[in-house]
């Protein structure tokens, strides 16, 4: 009696919408335009209705052209795969570059420690295999241990780091074993932990494993004279007791079998002190190594992916802000940033019909590529392309393919200039701890362009720091201020980097700017040679206390303003940017933060609109023909944070009974003949059973909590409000 099932599959698809979206992020399945349209229609309340409409139009356009539909679907999918693989490889490269420094440090440390241990004694094979300790003059046997501070409370990002570290060490001639927190847990004990250590080193572990097994393995010729590195990547999660025992066990043997630890610490150096007993700590010879902080990595990633046009895909201001906030306020991991970016990328390619043109950005001869593609386009899609609002505002109205190709190449060029200008800004602000992500978010703001008129006056009156500008131009302002107070040496360095960045620019005006930089550089150098360093220092301190700034700094600031004004053109101000730029933040948000509990509750409350059945159309009253759980959920809305079970049940029974009697009166072919006598014991039992099932379902979906022992007749509500 719950639902007429003519269009159940459709509603089912609708119901799981957030999950469907998540699933698509895997990009393994081709999203059919059918499903896409449904997603669009199911979001009538989205604020950016424009985009939805556009996509709707696009879908309609495509549907008229069924033959080409599959082709372009395919093209977009290929384009996505190509783009993303490019981005992914860039990411990998960047992260690898950052980590490599640390890896080399670790390797250096391993070599030094190994030679130190070997300097104490060089035990013969036979001595290593003896069960009793070597008699050496070493008073305290300590295991060299590298504590790697990962500087992020969240661990996810470092999994790959430690995996790569293991690979790096192994390729450089170390034996390697990794122990995780699950192996170092109290459940396995030190025995199990040691076994899994052996299993990673030895090919054949006997069923009773002691250190002697390890010793005899180590004495085999191909294993001897290499250090054994044990990597424990998440120290905080280990059981201190087990780890302490392992340390004591291995420290007895450290001279015979050189085992070193590499431990990852997510928080502070206090962690091992809190975790291990003092006796175990005594046996460690600690060294501290640090990984680049997440924001450093983030800066590098943003530079490589978003600022430098690495894949011809970019994100709009709102999306950038969303990603930034997601990173700083919610998750704080690079991993989730990347996955969000990937989601944005896949969304872009699945929603934007012309997105396959993105790939052209990477081609050698991009104009040729675009011409080929564009000329093959059917008329409707061409019309669609010139219907972009960005084209409308730029007054491009003729439908010729030259126009769009010109537009796209201009877009590409301006993007490059924009990236260089942004990097110049970042280079200047870097010394003032300005994050690239912040500058980036401001630089993609389309309002930047319209406000540029105000820009100079705003910056020159330095009281701006207190002004709350809605679009947040504070970072750029901060950079502008920072450059006025840079010491000479840094300024010189900054100028050098600038000329590097600006070299890549193509514009005619650029050479002029570049000349200015050169000129500034030469003046700085001459000034540098004239004035002794000490004098400059006093001047600097005087300048920072007083009102005046160094004229050179002033000049650099003016130059930077110039560059910013001319070249920092946000992508969203350019015609045809819709093709390469992803702006739909709502889609991204709903895909990332599913909020499943709320969705479940909403769907339960509005099940009529989803099911579209004929029996329970009534808008206000709860109809008994609804699904049980749906009835219960509707009834629960009338209560506060606790629900009286008895009342709840009585109302439920009342509703069911009224429907049953009504149904009986109306037609004799009622589907619920068994329940025609609601007062009969089995009928009541049935209702009770349905009630129980509904409550359990609500409990499992996380809408209510079962009664506590103290108040057995009350259920707690957990989810509130629609």
């Amino acid at each position, binding site marked *: 009696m719950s639902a007429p099932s003519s269009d159940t599959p459709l509603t089912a698809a609708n119901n799981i919408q957030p999950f469907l979206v998540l699933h698509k992020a895997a990009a393994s399945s081709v999203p059919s335009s059918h499903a896409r349209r449904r997603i669009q229609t199911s979001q009538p309340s989205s604020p950016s209705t424009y985009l939805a409409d556009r996509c709707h139009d696009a879908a309609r356009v495509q549907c008229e052209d069924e033959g080409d539909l599959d082709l372009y679907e395919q093209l977009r999918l290929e384009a996505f795969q190509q783009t993303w693989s490019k981005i992914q490889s860039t990411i990998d490269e960047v992260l690898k570059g950052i980590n490599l420094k640390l890896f080399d440090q670790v390797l250096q440390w391993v070599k030094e420690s190994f030679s130190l241990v070997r300097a104490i004694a060089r035990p*013969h*094979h*036979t001595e290593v*295999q*003896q*069960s*009793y300790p070597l*008699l050496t*003059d070493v*008073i*305290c046997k300590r295991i060299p241990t590298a504590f790697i501070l990962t*500087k*992020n*409370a*969240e*661990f996810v990002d470092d999994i790959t780091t430690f995996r790569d570290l293991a690979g790096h060490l192994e390729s450089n001639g170390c034996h390697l074993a990794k122990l995780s927190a699950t192996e170092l847990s109290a459940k396995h004990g030190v*025995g199990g932990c*040691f*076994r899994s250590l052996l299993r990673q080193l030895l090919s054949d572990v006997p*069923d*009773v*494993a*002691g*250190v*002697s097994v390890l010793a005899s393995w180590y004495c*085999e010729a191909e294993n001897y004279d290499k250090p054994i590195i044990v990597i424990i990547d998440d120290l*905080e*999660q280990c059981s201190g007791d087990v780890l302490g025992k392992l340390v*004591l*066990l*291995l420290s007895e*043997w450290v001279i015979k079998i050189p085992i070193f630890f590499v431990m990852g610490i*997510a928080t*502070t150096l206090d962690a091992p*002190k809190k975790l291990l007993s*003092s*006796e175990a*700590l*005594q046996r460690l*010879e*600690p*060294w*501290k*190594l640090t990984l680049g902080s*997440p*924001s450093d990595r983030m800066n590098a990633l943003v530079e490589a992916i978003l600022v430098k046009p690495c894949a011809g895909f970019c994100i709009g201001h*709102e999306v950038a*802000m*969303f990603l930034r*906030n997601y*990173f*700083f*306020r*919610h*998750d*704080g991991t690079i991993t989730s940033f990347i996955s969000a970016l990937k989601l944005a990328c896949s969304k872009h390619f699945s929603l934007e019909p012309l997105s396959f043109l993105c790939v052209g950005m990477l081609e050698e001869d991009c104009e040729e590529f675009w011409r080929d593609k564009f000329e093959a386009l059917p008329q409707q899609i061409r019309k669609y392309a010139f219907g972009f609002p960005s084209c409308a505002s730029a007054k491009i109205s003729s439908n010729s393919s030259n126009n769009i190709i010109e537009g796209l190449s201009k877009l590409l060029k301006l993007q490059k200039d924009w990236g260089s200008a942004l990097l110049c800004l970042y280079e200047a602000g870097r010394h003032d701890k300005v994050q690239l992500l912040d500058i980036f978010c401001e630089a993609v703001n389309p309002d930047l362009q319209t406000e540029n008129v105000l820009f100079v006056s705003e910056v020159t009156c330095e009281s701006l720091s207190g002004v709350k500008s809605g*679009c*947040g131009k504070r970072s750029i302002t901060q950079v502008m201020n920072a450059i006025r107070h840079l010491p000479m040496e840094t300024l010189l360095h900054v100028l050098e980097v600038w000329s590097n960045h600006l070299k890549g620019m193509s514009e005619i005006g650029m050479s002029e700017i570049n000349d200015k930089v050169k000129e500034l550089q030469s003046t700085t150098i001459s000034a540098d040679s004239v004035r002794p360093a000490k004098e400059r220092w006093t001047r600097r301190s005087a300048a920072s206390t007083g009102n005046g700034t160094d004229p050179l700094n002033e000049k650099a600031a003016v130059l930077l303003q110039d560059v910013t004004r001319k070249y920092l053109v946000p992508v969203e101000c350019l015609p045809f940017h819709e093709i390469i730029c992803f702006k739909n933040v709502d889609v991204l*948000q709903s895909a990332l933060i599913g*909020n499943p509990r709320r969705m479940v509750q909403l769907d339960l409350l509005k099940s009529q609109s989803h099911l579209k059945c004929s029996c329970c159309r009534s808008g206000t009253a709860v109809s008994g023909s609804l699904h049980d759980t749906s009835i219960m959920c509707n009834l629960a809305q009338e209560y506060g944070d606790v629900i009286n079970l008895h009342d709840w049940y009585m109302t439920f029974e009342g509703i069911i009974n009224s429907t049953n009697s009504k149904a009986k009166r109306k037609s004799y072919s009622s589907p619920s003949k068994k329940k025609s006598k609601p007062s009969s014991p089995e009928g009541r039992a049935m209702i009770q059973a349905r009630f129980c099932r509904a409550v359990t379902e609500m409990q499992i979906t996380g809408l209510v909590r079962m009664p506590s022992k103290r108040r057995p007749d009350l259920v707690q509500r957990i989810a509130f409000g629609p």
Partner: protein
Amino acid sequence: MSQPVTPRRTTRSSAGSASDPASPSKSRPKSTPRRQLIPAASKEEEGEDERSAINALLEALPGRRAQASDLLRLLAPAPALPLLLYGGAATGKTRALLLALRHIRPRPRRVAYAALRSLPSPRALFASLLSQLSPPPSSSASSRQRVPDKPSDFVAALRDALASLCAQGEAVYLVFDNLEVVRSWDKGGQLLALILRLHDLLRLPQVVLVYVSSATPDAYYSMTGSVEPNHIYFPDYAVDEVRDILMRGHSNPKLYTSFLSVALKPLFRVTRRVDELGAALEPLFRRYCEPLGDLKAVPDESTKRRLFEHIQPHLAVALNETFSVPMRASVDQCKDGNSGVKASTKRQFGSRDSLSTELEFHMSVSAKYLLLSAFLASRNLATLDAALFDSTGGSDNHKRKRKSSQASMNMKDTMVEEMLMKGPGTFPLERLLAIFQCITSVSEDALNDVECPDSMMNGSGMTGLMSDVLLQLSTLCNSNFLSKSRSCPLEGAARYRSNIDEDLALKVARSVSFPLSKYIYRR
């Protein structure tokens, strides 16, 4: 396990000829020297050599003259009773025993040594002992020996192995090191009783049992009813003995003496363990030598004074650090190979301050707020929540306190004191979320100012923060900031406790500019 098949007895019989090279030559099978203890002084017969050997033994064990002669006396002709060596950690028990076993006459036929600390389980102990006693198995049946599971099987196997050895009439020594470790093993009590009663169980006069332990005999022999062994007590070293030990093998004894005269006494007041002292003194000595160009030079008085002034501040730091972990010193060294000495000392002294100013690791804003609310929930009484987190955000807290009577004040005071004694309290998830919601809503305005107009995207900024709170919670649990007790997967009725100290909480609060002190209830 590619050891060649060598029945041990044959090599043993040729010991007279084979022992004189004293170093295992290439042609010699690997397994043979492994079975011997430390290759002994070659000419066993001559008495003079023996005396000099004893002198060498005493030489090698500074401050252990009495114990060493006791050992030689009690070990030499196989004694009737087991032997127990006890004394604090790092007092030279194992070293003395191993050296003495090298020197006793007649030479021990076989020594089986089991360091219980490096054996992860009882079975590993059984396997290790049996493999040391029984002749190496033939290569075909190699490593897969049957290891007894039950203690009774082990005793039988051990008796078999020993009986064949004892038939030759020479003594076999069984050494159990780190005996105290067994007590913390699973079913350790039973195993301990078994090990201690081995003498009664085996009844083989040639088998000498030696136990080494850092716990006193009372810990073992109070209830087992086994034979009480001979004891040798190893007392803690005196300061002069420690100096002798530390002096051994230094390239420039004069310099080291002058260093020890400065550094040893103060550190000795903190710890008497030689290993701890050694570990603490090593970096200090490196510091001490820094001003010196030539490490071989013999320091004169003025240099000594200069060096003393140089080391003084480091010594003060080390005194506080020895007891916990000597971590910072080494950390500093690794960090600044190039920066000057002064900078690093400054950092050492200033490290406390620099630590307290900023958070050293990255955490998302919502995780920070969650951590703060957990800290508050652990720190404050649940009954005070309503007062602290009312609509005004706890600012009229003082008024309320003033109104309350003296008696209730006193009661509250005792309550707070009690709470402090108990340590951080536990709290259910709901309370944590309620506090979280309160403090995020209070600081929401400030947050919006700083964070630009994201609230329009996140619905309201609050729900944005709330969205994946459970994920953040698990992150905090993983990094040991919170601990979680029993839970039911459906109900989530777990209780939490915050493990962070106030310093860290304040640091976190500062990083999100949250007025934490306003919310901590103090008297």
